[in-house]
């Protein structure tokens, strides 16, 4: 395998009873790339995330991270190896302050609080949340919670960052803020997998796009190629994009 291949997913399937949430999905992510995963609701995007990060055990297939087979690893072990994730429904620790939330993440690489706190401050400076560091998790707006969740993931010092709909439900201004942050993270050389519905953002940030529908991968390619593909338009994008692409 190529050494710079960050994540390699081969023939991954996940069944819930008789329902195939993921069926024979194969794709790979090179180091330093941003790959977007798109598809209609119920296409299996979040299931794919959960299978890669060890939250679900896939029924078949293989997930490798820098050549290491991680298919059967526990979530916390995968996290320690360097895959960080956020959740579709934003998850922060509500009775901790913003700083404490990020410290909890940073503690994966430190045993004592002091250095973890320094790291956390550094990350909050980077993500622009430092002025709210003493707010409680519950006191944040959705946009700030999402920003905090990204900060917590960054505190894990991952080699691959997986964002599950970090832009859903945001206003235009907040959206541009998050897109700016993702670009900033990319410029630091981070490899990213992003699940997203906001097509403008997908077009803007992605190097490659993987399209899922009904649990299957129906297409993979450059953002431009994807939006001009007939099947993708029918399954997901709708006529608006047909017009744009012609």
């Amino acid at each position, binding site marked *: 395998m190529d050494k710079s291949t960050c994540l390699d997913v081969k023939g991954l399937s996940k069944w819930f009873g008789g329902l195939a949430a993921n069926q024979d999905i194969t794709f790979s992510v090179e180091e330093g790339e941003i790959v977007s995963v798109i598809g209609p609701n119920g296409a299996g995007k979040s299931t794919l995330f959960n299978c890669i990060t060890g939250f679900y055990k896939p029924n078949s297939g293989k997930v490798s991270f820098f050549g290491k087979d991680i298919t059967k690893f526990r979530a916390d072990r995968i996290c320690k190896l360097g895959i960080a994730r956020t959740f579709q429904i934003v998850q922060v620790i509500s*009775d901790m302050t913003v700083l404490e939330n990020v410290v909890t*993440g940073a503690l994966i690489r430190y045993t004592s609080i002091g250095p973890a706190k320094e790291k956390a401050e550094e990350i909050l400076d980077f993500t622009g949340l430092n002025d709210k560091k003493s707010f409680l998790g519950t006191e944040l707006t959705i946009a700030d919670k999402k920003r905090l969740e990204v900060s917590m*993931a960054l505190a894990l010092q991952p080699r691959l960052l997986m964002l599950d709909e970090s832009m859903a439900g945001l206003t235009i201004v907040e959206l541009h803020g998050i897109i700016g942050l993702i670009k900033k993270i990319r410029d630091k050389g981070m490899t990213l997998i992003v699940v997203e519905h906001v097509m403008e953002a997908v077009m803007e940030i992605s190097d490659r796009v993987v399209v899922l529908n009904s649990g299957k991968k129906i297409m993979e390619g450059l953002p431009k190629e994807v939006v001009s593909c007939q099947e993708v338009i029918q399954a997901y994008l709708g006529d608006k994009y047909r017009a744009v692409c012609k």
Partner: protein
Amino acid sequence: MKKFTTKQISVTGITLLVLLLFPLVITQTYIIHVMILVFMFGMLGVAWNIMGGYAGMFSFGQAAFFGIGAYTSSFLVVTFHVNPWIGLIAGGVVAAVMAAAIGYPCSNLRGHYFAIATIAFGEIVRIFFNNWKLVNAAEGITLPMVNESFTNFMFHSSKLPYYYIILSFLLIALVICYFVAHSKMGYYFRAIKESHDVARALGVNVVWYRLIAIMISAFLSAMAGTFYAQYILYIDPESVMLLAISIQLVLISMLGGAGTVMGPVIGAAILIPIAEFTRIWLGHKGTGVDMLIYGFLITLISVYQPQGIWGLFANIGKKKNG
């Protein structure tokens, strides 16, 4: 680790000094007895709080660990003439092992389901001991009288040594709780309390950290159990393993402030005297009056001050400083 302010140090110092001098000034045996109970339940509350308040595992079976501690040391004293101080450690170890054995299969239980499992565990242990011939079943164990000395963990002429011993136990529990709360473990416990998913996404081995919380909690509870056995000199399953004790510990911690170091001690300092003094004033007719007052206080707290009484202090402190 955060530095203490002079105010914090002086308040702690003065409180300690008052508690050390208290039994020398107020010498009524009954008051000393109530204080001993306050410290003991305070210690049990602190133990409960480590798993319940910090890691979010609401245990209604804490009396089982308390009882296992009491039974282990007493059984060793009576059968093998083992020194109760060694029994104290042995009891803690046995309780911690039991805790791990029951905690592991419950790894995925959260919230109400975990609470239900702990009720079942507590009741199973009580019924088991009630029928276990080796430990005298329902007859219980009477500890043999020996010469009073610190080594023998037995004192006849005065309650003072017991007062100071349980006060030091409480301090040990508080120091452990403080270090847990301000360490990596404490952060991870609070992540687990929020949700298993968020903890796992932060790289926390949820099963492992939950087991650690349960084991620390069980060890400290068992220590209090051995103390109780050496203090009362008689134990049976109906006095050390009652569900009522477990419930009282939850109430103590919730009232004082779950997830705070000092909360359970405040809770114990309020609820235990209420229970004891209603018993004095109203005698047998007053059975349950303390529960009425408990209920009233808990209602007040959950409506107006969900973080407990300690939270109230903390808020006032914040307002003053901010």
